[in-house]
């Protein structure tokens, strides 16, 4: 394995070297970096041109210029990267760092959302092949897929930002809203859950009643402006999770597993109260929250292993899952607690431009909420646009695998349908998907140019476009190097994942 990895890393470096060399030579031979000066009306143009020629080394042969650039990059191995300077003499390194961070924020959430939703939808549509649900999903997926980004962005801004903000001025669900939403869910949810006609009718009815009860309650407690989960909902939710996971993984009669789950819930409630004040202003922000989460998981593992007895594996799984989701609920509750704070600083919460609000000077939670509301529009857009690929690939891959002999064998020996789908079919269906994910991630980083422009983010795409327009090689090369590295690295990761997922592959 180690030898394979080293071999792959070696070829990765070679590929990057070739790619940068090629693009550098093409870059410096297209366009005129002096174009703006040639059209400048000033008495010192000659001097300015000479100065720029010397600064950018325009009079040097290509291999010397490439070497100059490369030697800065090679500094990365010594711990000090130097991506060179732009045409105006500004350092590219801080620019590209900031842009990469922005791009990652922009792309990461969208990609994760697209993968999770896309794969789930794919599985469901594969299970209900040729049903009304299947056709409906296919229709909408392709509709999203074929939308031009800039136009979809205009629609998203209109409906998800401007109209939502208008509504948020006085948020209130009318009975028309409630009935329409209830009807849609009453039709849609049974389609997903399936079952015979009677069961569908019951799920539909429950769904309808549920919506008709919850939305008026939300109106009554001003949920849209002052949302809270509160200890009661967190407790009930966590207890349901603990019981549910136990039932799924070990069976509800396995008391040791159930008790470890319940212990986690109890400790979680204690922690919820104990850390409330500390978390009001978490020292170190996200890092601190991350550390808290790791600690939580570690405690859950300890509880599972010590209380689980002979079923300690299952107990650990249950307590870790319960603990993780309960942390999520507590986090959500904190965010909800600060939502009114965001609304008072920013009465129209969803903006159509920018990565954050310029003059917002608030605590950690409000700042984070602000970043999320700014991220919301571009993320939804990018996720919707790449949803199609995941859904369709998962669906066809699942359908193919389900027809294979080993799935039939598993069914024949009486394995439950859930195990067949998740353990036998899905795991194998994932293999081709891994390649797509790897490709898509790199494509998303470089392909967010339009989204950045439309939403006024200054991320990687912007650096690239600006560099191209001014025929400035350093920023363009930095873009190529960073996105190129991400692309080859993710391909490498995909290959390694193959070995993990597919027992037939040995390296």
């Amino acid at each position, binding site marked *: 394995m180690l030898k394979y990895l080293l071999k792959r890393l070696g070829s990765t470096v070679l590929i990057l070297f070739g790619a940068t060399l090629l693009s550098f030579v093409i870059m410096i031979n297209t*366009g005129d970096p002096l*174009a*703006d000066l*040639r*059209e*400048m*009306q*000033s*008495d*010192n*143009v000659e*001097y*300015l041109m*000479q*100065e720029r020629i010397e600064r950018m080394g325009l009079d040097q042969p290509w291999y010397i210029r490439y070497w100059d650039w490369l030697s800065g990059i090679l500094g990365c191995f010594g711990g000090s990267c130097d991506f060179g300077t732009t*045409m*105006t*003499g*500004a*350092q590219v390194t*801080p*620019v590209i760092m*900031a842009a990469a961070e922005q791009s990652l924020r922009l792309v990461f959430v969208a990609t994760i959302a697209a993968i999770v939703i896309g794969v789930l939808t794919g599985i469901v549509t594969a299970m209900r092949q040729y049903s009304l649900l299947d056709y409906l999903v296919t229709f909408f997926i392709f509709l999203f897929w074929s939308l031009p980004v*800039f136009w979809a962005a*205009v629609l998203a*801004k*209109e409906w998800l*930002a*401007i109209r939502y*903000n208008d509504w948020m001025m006085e948020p209130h669900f009318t009975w028309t809203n409630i009935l329409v939403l209830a009807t849609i869910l009453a039709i849609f949810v049974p389609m997903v859950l399936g079952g015979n006609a009677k069961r569908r009718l019951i799920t539909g009815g429950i769904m309808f009643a549920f919506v008709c009860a919850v939305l008026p309650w939300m109106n009554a407690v001003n949920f849209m402006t002052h949302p809270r989960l509160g200890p009661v909902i967190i407790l009930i939710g966590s207890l349901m999770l603990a019981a549910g996971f136990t039932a799924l993984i070990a069976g509800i009669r396995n008391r040791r597993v159930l008790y470890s789950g319940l212990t986690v819930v109890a400790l979680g409630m204690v922690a919820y109260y104990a850390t409330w004040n500390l978390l009001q202003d978490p020292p170190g922000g996200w890092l601190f929250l991350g550390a808290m989460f790791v600690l939580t998981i570690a405690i859950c593992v300890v509880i599972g292993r010590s209380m689980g007895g002979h079923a300690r594996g299952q107990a650990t799984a249950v307590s870790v899952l319960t603990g993780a989701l309960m942390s999520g609920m507590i986090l959500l509750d904190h965010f909800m607690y600060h939502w009114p704070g965001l609304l008072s600083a920013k009465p*129209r919460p*969803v*903006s*159509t*431009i*920018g*990565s954050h609000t*310029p*003059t917002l000077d608030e605590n950690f939670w409000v700042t984070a909420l602000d970043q999320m509301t700014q991220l919301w529009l571009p993320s939804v857009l990018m996720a919707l646009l790449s949803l199609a690929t995941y859904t369709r690939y998962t669906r066809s891959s699942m359908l193919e695998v389900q027809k294979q002999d080993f799935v039939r064998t598993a069914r024949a020996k009486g394995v439950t349908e859930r195990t067949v789908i998740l353990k036998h079919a899905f795991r194998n269906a994932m293999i081709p998907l891994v390649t797509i994910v790897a490709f898509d991630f790199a494509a998303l980083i470089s392909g967010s140019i339009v989204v950045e*422009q*439309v*939403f*006024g*983010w*200054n991320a990687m795409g*912007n650096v690239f*476009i600006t560099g*191209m*327009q*001014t*025929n400035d090689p350093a920023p363009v090369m930095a873009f190529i190097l960073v996105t190129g590295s991400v692309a080859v690295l993710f391909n490498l990761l995909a290959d390694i994942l193959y070995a993990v997922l597919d027992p037939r592959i040995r390296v």
Partner: protein
Amino acid sequence: MELRKLSAATAILASGALVLSACTPGDDTGGDNGDTNGDNGAANGDADPGDAEGQEFTVEPEDGGKADLGDDFETAEDEISVSLGPQPFNSYNGLTPSNYNVYNSTIVDRLFDGFSYVGTDLEIYTNEEFGSYEVISEDPFTVEYTINDEVEWSDGTPVTVADYVLDWGTSRYIGEGMFDGISPNFGTYVPDGPQAESYDSKTFTVEYPDGAYADWELMVQYAHPSHIVAQETGIEQEELVDAILEGDEDMIEDIAETWNTLWETDPGTLPDEDLIPSSGPYILSDWQDGEYVTLEANENYWGTPPGVSTLVFQFVDNAAHVQALQNGDLNAIVPTETVDTRTELENLVEQGQHAMHVGDKATWEHLDIQYGEGSPFAETPELAEAFALCVPRDQILENLIHPVNPDAELQNAREVLSFQPNYDEIVAETYDGQYDTADVEAAAEIIEEHGAEGTEILIGHNGQERRHDTVELIQASCGEAGFEIEDGGDVDIDIAAGEWDVALFAWAGSGQIASGLNIYGWDRENDEPRPQNWTNYNNDDVSDAFETIATSDDEDEIQEQIIALEQAMWEDLHGIPLYVHPGITAWDSSIANVRPTPAQSQLVWNVEQWQRVAE
């Protein structure tokens, strides 16, 4: 005169991208020329180009200059967001070649007050709160400047002649190893620099030994803090002044090194706040590279306080402006000038929360005819008339400009724009409407006469959509007359190299009077075209007129010379002016005192007067 970018690259940036070049420090404001000095805001009978429906004022302006807001005007705890386009902020020092552009100026102009500014009527107005200036001698031409006593930097240091000596130094000692300045003009025309009693005087004189210079009012504008530069160089302010005035090269090199590098930081990081004091109403407070710059009101400002405590300049693609305005993310915008934008904004204005303005920009589109070698007009100059006759100017205006700005007129001059007060007077004497409408038959006759049927004409431009449409209209009309028009917008040609028969582009005005010399003049000493005379145009009368203008400060004489040169250029058919570019601006109508201007200082030219008022 600033030049509208010709390369295809800029076309992608934004249709309204004005370019990054000019001649004199601080001349980024203003329009093309015309009568720039003299009677400020003379009544001209035309409506103020900045008037718009739904506009609010705290004090109605009397002329094209800034209104006097009164002594009780106070800064409100409030925030206003504005975007002019995606072009980012570069630096506090906007007077180096890499930082000097219209968009950087829109921000740094808020940090530095100067002696004058350009109003909505493109007249030059004196900034009376800052100081005053007057011509005290005609021979040698000498101007006396007085800075008001209370004028000081936000760190408490008074603004004095020392700052202007530094400003002069960046022009006098420009070049390698010296100041990375943008223009040698100040240093060349004023060889001795600003003269004063002592280094910290508030009064100084500027002497032009070679006679008057037409653009003298734009020569002395705002200055950088010389006390900061002196401190960072490790010398006293007095030493700095002496070194520059006496030409002590060693010390000037040190000072230049400081001035060149002091304010250059990584994009997104402002220099230390002690190093960037402000002499204007706002100070720089935050900078997110490529996204926004925020300005805070200068608490130690000596003039009328600015309207709001926080200004945010956002760098947003113009196509995203309307929705951002609607959502309140931006409060004042300059969207793309299209029919769609106009319609969207009209709907928005109807709801009563916003105001919009459709008007002119100080940028004008024209066709230049190449008389140099290789062009059909070089062999048979008479064909130029045939071409001018077949260009459907009225149709171009009607089809391409009227949908956006129904009030737009044909532009019939080069040195004065159609919305300026003296335009009608000048055009009445220089042009009688013979090329307003295409006369295909007359054009065909001339072509036949010279046996030039099927002559190919390459029209070079930067590939913008509107220019493609323009060429298409010309193709239809001139094709009928017998020319073969080729659209050069898709070909990679170097416009500045003159590789075309006709060029379609725009000049953006800068407020300078003398800049036309470089475009239309012939350098008779060296017998070569001047730097931007790409058509090799050589007419002694025109060169004479421009040379007279360049050394004149007499308004009547300048107008006379403009009439002479316009006549000659119509006669010679140097080129065919087409139209003035339309501009759209819109803002939240609760903000008072917003006044659009055609000048390049753009919508924000009086941003320190903006304030929200209760409706």
